């Protein structure tokens, strides 16, 4: 397939679509390598619009890691909006990369990163626009379609559409896959596509769905999942990068051309989380905790700012205040950038006073807009169930501290539909919000303190203790959200300082179907896509009716249904669709933790307490890597004026 640029044919279409700049490419720090000089070529996709996909850290990391290799290249592609999609179909323009505007079908590998299952229909659009057969078994000299990201820990619903899924951290395995493809091509492609897939199945962390058969019981449950080909592993185990300081990516963050959802540079300060929140798939599948050292963080912040000109840096992780040296990091960075226009933020926050101090330190330059806390559960009882140990007193004290330190707006995140939840648990959120406002007014003497309650429906996820739970049906969720809104407004005096933001429960049911679905759900995705389903993560494009209709059309022949996949509680011995995919977590530990949840028994964080045998470290040969290192950030020479940034060699921190 010719790799010639599609831009001459794309360009005349661009004046006819919304935000054409997103399809142009050429961002600062983007890379365009010579096609013929690379032995292995990757097209990397984030299956959502440019404004969502561009800031994605995972994709930026892989893009750099691949492009640093002399024998490989990577270009990026994002979902095109329906207006361009229909013009591309009309004019026969295929899915293209934004870097070289090359046809995706011309690449050796097409890697798609799924942060959420709601991107599945967009995968089908991209495949179809690229001219790649939707069914993996129909492909021959087409790219190898690789799924990664958190959703790849249960890729069964898209098993028909992908050739390969990769579990866990991508930094190292992407290189190993590249090696395999290069060697296979160099050897004259022995065994063809199947030969290549067999070799890839031998790479740790790589799952090739076609080499596994799924058998079902008469009642619709899975009997077993077994390899159908010699030489492939019974279980595929996730990959874990063990020293983050050795992988300081992205070194040159992309600067978007169009407005994106995150107008900031992100620096990942640690990976993994062992807080043990039972609903949190990210915390479960990224264990153990691996910190980046304070000095490596300082160097990445400095180098990234010099190369980009961003004015805000987010210190990214699943629970950033938990870094063993977060105090020194915050203090060091605040010192370094005092008096500049660089703002610092912690995107994820913990409910305690220390966090407020941290946020204060990071916003020394003066901007104190809002602070976010995530108690997640409305009542203390429910917070024990989900293992988010925050007492009501802690919460009110923390929020008051924030108000006293000059914040006027506090946002509180909750979930609705958690296991064992009752109306009363949700109604306690209203009470909590009222008490927060009352205490905040008393503490500050001001009436202008505000609190926003943001609440969404809970979706049980694979590889978590709640993977067995019955998902709360959307009618119950919506009814509870209405009750909550009414209860907040019932007290007009306090309620007018409280905002309630919520999403209705129906998209969560579809996310639940796709999260815990098996291979039979693939036909539902295909039917929805055929009926026009696109951008399901966007409320203006999502159609519950379309998904429901597809479920009714497709699932009964298997004796299952949308409810069967979502609201049904699973028992201990049911074979789950992802049981052959190993996140390192011990299944018996997960089950015990699920039983503990139901009785409100909490579990500690193993960073500070003895191991509680979740199974990850011994199973994967990994270990917790945390400080403190005892080092500090040395002050740097201040950033130069914007115009001369390129001429100044990068200095490293400390």
């Amino acid at each position, binding site marked *: 397939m010719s790799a010639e640029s599609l831009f001459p044919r794309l360009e005349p279409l661009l004046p006819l679509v919304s935000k054409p700049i997103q399809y142009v490419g050429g961002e*600062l720090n983007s890379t365009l390598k010579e096609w013929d000089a690379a032995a292995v070529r990757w097209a990397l996709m984030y299956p959502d619009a440019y404004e969502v996909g561009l800031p994605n850290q995972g994709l930026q990391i892989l893009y750099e890691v691949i492009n640093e290799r002399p024998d490989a290249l990577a270009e990026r592609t994002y979902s095109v909006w329906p207006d361009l999609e229909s013009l591309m179909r009309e004019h026969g323009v295929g899915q293209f990369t934004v870097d070289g505007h090359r046809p995706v079908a011309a690449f050796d590998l097409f890697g798609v990163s799924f942060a959420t299952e709601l991107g599945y229909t967009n995968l089908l659009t991209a495949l179809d626009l690229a001219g790649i057969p939707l069914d993996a078994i129909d492909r021959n000299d087409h790219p190898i379609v690789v799924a990664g990201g958190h959703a790849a820990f249960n890729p069964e619903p898209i098993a028909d559409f992908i050739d390969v899924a990769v579990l866990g951290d991508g930094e190292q395995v992407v290189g190993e896959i590249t090696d395999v493809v290069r060697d296979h091509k160099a050897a004259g492609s022995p065994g063809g596509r199947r030969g290549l897939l067999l070799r890839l199945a031998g790479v740790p962390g790589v799952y090739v769905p076609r080499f596994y058969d799924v058998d079902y019981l008469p009642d619709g449950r899975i009997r077993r999942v077994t390899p159908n080909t010699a030489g492939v592993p019974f279980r595929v185990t996730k990959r874990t990068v063990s020293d983050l300081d050795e992988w300081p990516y992205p070194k040159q963050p992309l600067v978007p051309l169009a407005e994106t959802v995150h107008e900031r540079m992100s620096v990942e300060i640690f990976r993994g989380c062992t807080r043990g929140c039972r609903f949190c798939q990210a915390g479960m599948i990224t264990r153990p905790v691996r910190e980046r050292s304070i000095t490596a963080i300082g160097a990445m912040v400095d180098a990234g700012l010099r190369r980009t000109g961003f004015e805000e840096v987010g210190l990214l992780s699943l629970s950033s205040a938990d870094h063993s040296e977060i105090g020194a990091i915050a203090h060091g960075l605040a010192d370094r950038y005092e008096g500049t226009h660089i703002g610092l933020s912690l995107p994820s926050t913990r409910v305690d006073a220390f966090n407020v101090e941290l946020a204060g330190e990071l916003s020394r330059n003066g901007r104190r807009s809002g602070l976010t806390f995530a108690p997640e559960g409305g009542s203390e009882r429910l917070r024990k169930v989900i293992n988010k140990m925050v007492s009501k007193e802690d919460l009110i004290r923390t929020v008051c501290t924030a108000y006293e330190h000059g914040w006027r707006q506090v946002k509180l995140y909750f979930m609705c539909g958690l296991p064992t939840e009752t109306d009363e648990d949700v109604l306690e959120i209203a009470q909590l919000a009222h008490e927060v406002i009352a205490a905040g007014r008393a503490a500050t003497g001001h009436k202008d303190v505000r609190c926003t309650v943001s609440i969404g429906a809970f979706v049980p996820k694979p590889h978590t203790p709640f993977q067995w739970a019955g998902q709360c049906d959307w009618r119950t969720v919506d009814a509870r959200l209405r009750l909550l809104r009414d209860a907040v407004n019932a007290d007009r005096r306090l309620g007018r300082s409280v905002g309630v933001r919520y999403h209705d429960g129906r998209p969560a049911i579809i996310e639940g179907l796709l999260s815990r679905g098996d291979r039979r759900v693939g036909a539902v995705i295909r039917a929805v896509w055929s009926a026009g389903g696109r951008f399901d993560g966007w409320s203006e494009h999502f159609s519950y009716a379309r998904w429901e209709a597809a479920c009714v059309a497709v699932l009964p022949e298997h004796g299952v249904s949308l409810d069967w996949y979502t609201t049904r509680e699973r028992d201990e011995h049911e074979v789950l669709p992802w049981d052959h995919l190993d996140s390192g977590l011990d299944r018996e530990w997960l089950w015990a933790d699920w039983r503990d949840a139901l009785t409100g028994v909490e579990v500690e964080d193993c960073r500070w307490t003895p191991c509680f045998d979740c199974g990850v470290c011994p199973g994967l040969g990994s270990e917790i890597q945390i400080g403190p290192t005892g080092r500090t950030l040395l002050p740097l020479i201040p950033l130069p*004026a914007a*115009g001369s940034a390129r001429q100044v060699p990068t200095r490293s921190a400390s």
Partner: protein
Amino acid sequence: MAYSAGFTPHPKISYVGAAPTGVASEAEYLEIGVAERVEPDRLRDALDAALPAGLDIVECVEAGPGGLAERIDASRWQVELPGVTPEAVRAALTRFLAEDRIEVERLTKDGRRSLDARGAVVSAQLSADVPGAGRVPSPSLSDPCAILDVVVRQATPAVRPDDVLAALRAVADLVPPSPPRATRLAQGLLDGTGRLADPLGPDRRAALAARESAPGPLGALA
């Protein structure tokens, strides 16, 4: 780069008469406030290095007295019309120029709005009829290809090349078979003869005159 004062400081950049989406331009102007004195050529090179391919900083001059906004009140556009004969365009232009007002509709974020696409047009003719303005059409365009040369005064709402084309369609049923390509060739202050004065001319003269004396704090850039 210099920042505005206040609670949420913004970089001091101002664009004058930015071209609409979907057209080419060889004449965009913007002003950047800098925090410290920089060599204009170094600033040009540094900005060029950070911009995507195809966005080129042509020239950077230190701003003399007065703002850029007072030096630009019109644009010259070239519109290539592949598949349209010069005769058809000439006939359409005669009808166009005979009108005082031509109402056209444009789709905006807030729905359809109507505007006059004639009043702001200072001149409109075939490039071939403009002395010294003839250009070789892009080689990829098929014959015939009429090339239009239009000078449009800056107005609110701004009249864009596609508005002029909509007006030609309205008065003379001129419908190009394939998408026209518009390029802004110049911006500047309209003089009595219908020509555009170089917006950076005063700065260049001021910079020359001020070689020995102290310069102003702003850098302007084209």
